[in-house]
């Protein structure tokens, strides 16, 4: 069982940990330098054999520490989850040690996190983009990247030559009607992100 005793013993064993409040699973904040040894000890001594998920959060451009990674582990012995947060100290060149040597499952998750957030995982065996194509210049899940996307050339030159296609921002007028997170009620109701085409204005040609 993952209970208070278990949490206390972990906190005692690993002095660099801090516990965080959480509504569901026990959550620790771990410094990046100790992440590898902590995760390894969890696997070898506490029975957390499965890395179920690894991802990152972008806390926004104004945040002191912009990026942090989140690891979820599952234990077959304890039948429960554990969550580990680690904060990247550098906002311009976010970096995190790779846990793929301990959990091979982390390999693809880390590639995805690199692809979407641009967090560099040191000592990763094959750190390249996994969902977007290799030449893609942006990191889509960063908060400053727009949902519609940014103009970019398509990867295949010969196809572009014939079709004149390119990666264009998706149209955001006339729907989808999305809600903003903040502001007054009239601002936060679902509306088209681009308002150059509404019921009051004609559809631009």
């Amino acid at each position, binding site marked *: 069982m993952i209970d208070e005793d278990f949490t206390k013993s972990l906190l005692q064993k690993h002095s660099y940990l801090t516990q965080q409040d959480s509504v569901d699973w026990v959550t620790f904040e771990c410094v990046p330098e100790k992440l590898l040894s902590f995760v390894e000890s969890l696997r070898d001594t506490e029975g957390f054999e499965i890395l179920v998920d690894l991802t990152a959060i972008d806390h926004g451009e104004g945040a002191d520490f912009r990026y942090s990674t989140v690891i979820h582990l599952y234990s077959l012995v304890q039948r429960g989850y554990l969550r580990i947060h680690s904060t990247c100290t550098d906002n311009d060149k976010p970096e995190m040690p790779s846990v793929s040597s301990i959990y091979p499952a982390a390999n693809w998750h880390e590639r995805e996190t690199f692809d979407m957030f641009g967090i560099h995982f040191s000592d990763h065996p094959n750190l390249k983009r996994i*969902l*977007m*194509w290799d030449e893609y210049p*942006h990191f*889509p899940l960063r908060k400053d*990247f*727009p*949902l*519609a*996307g*940014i103009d970019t050339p*398509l*990867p*295949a030159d*010969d*196809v572009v*030559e*014939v*079709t004149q*296609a390119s*990666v*264009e*921002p*998706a*149209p*955001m007028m006339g*729907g*989808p009607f999305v809600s903003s997170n903040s502001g007054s009620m009239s601002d936060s109701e679902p509306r088209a992100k681009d308002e150059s085409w509404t019921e009051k204005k004609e559809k631009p040609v």
Partner: protein
Amino acid sequence: MGFACFKRLVRNKHMHMTASDVAYNGKVEGDVVVTRADAVINWIRQHSVWPMPMGLACCAIELMASAASRYDISRFGMEVMRFSPRQSDCMIVAGTVTYKMAEVVRRIYDQMGDPKWVVAMGACASTGGMYRSYSVMQGVDNIVPVDVYVSGCPPRPEALLDAMMKLQDKIGNESSVRNLRKTSAGAVK
């Protein structure tokens, strides 16, 4: 159209038709049908459309359903799903075309032999649908010419069958002989 000509000939067979000696000869009566080349070619093409199932996403499941037991696309001569573009006439783009996939779709389209048709199945393939995002191409018509668009997310198999019948009508009205002289321009090597 071919049958209409034939019927007219049969109705008029007691009349003297000098011009018909070449095509319509009393000795081979009943074995010869006179019609336009377009009509014959289109009739053949119409009823043996071999689809190339470009199954990309959810719509591919409805595409499979239309080929399977209840909807049975073979009633229209289209059950011969060929995964090789060289052997197919009609590309059914079933699903979301992402920018990463766009290149592949175009290359496969170019590998298909002429004449070829494209059906954009579902909202995503037609316009990008509900995926207005950074990675989704807003309609497959940005890279390949589309003949029939099917609405729906996903379209029901009936809608796909309807689209295929519309495509048959379209094929039936083509000027196939004239098109033969045209070269296929704009292919990706």
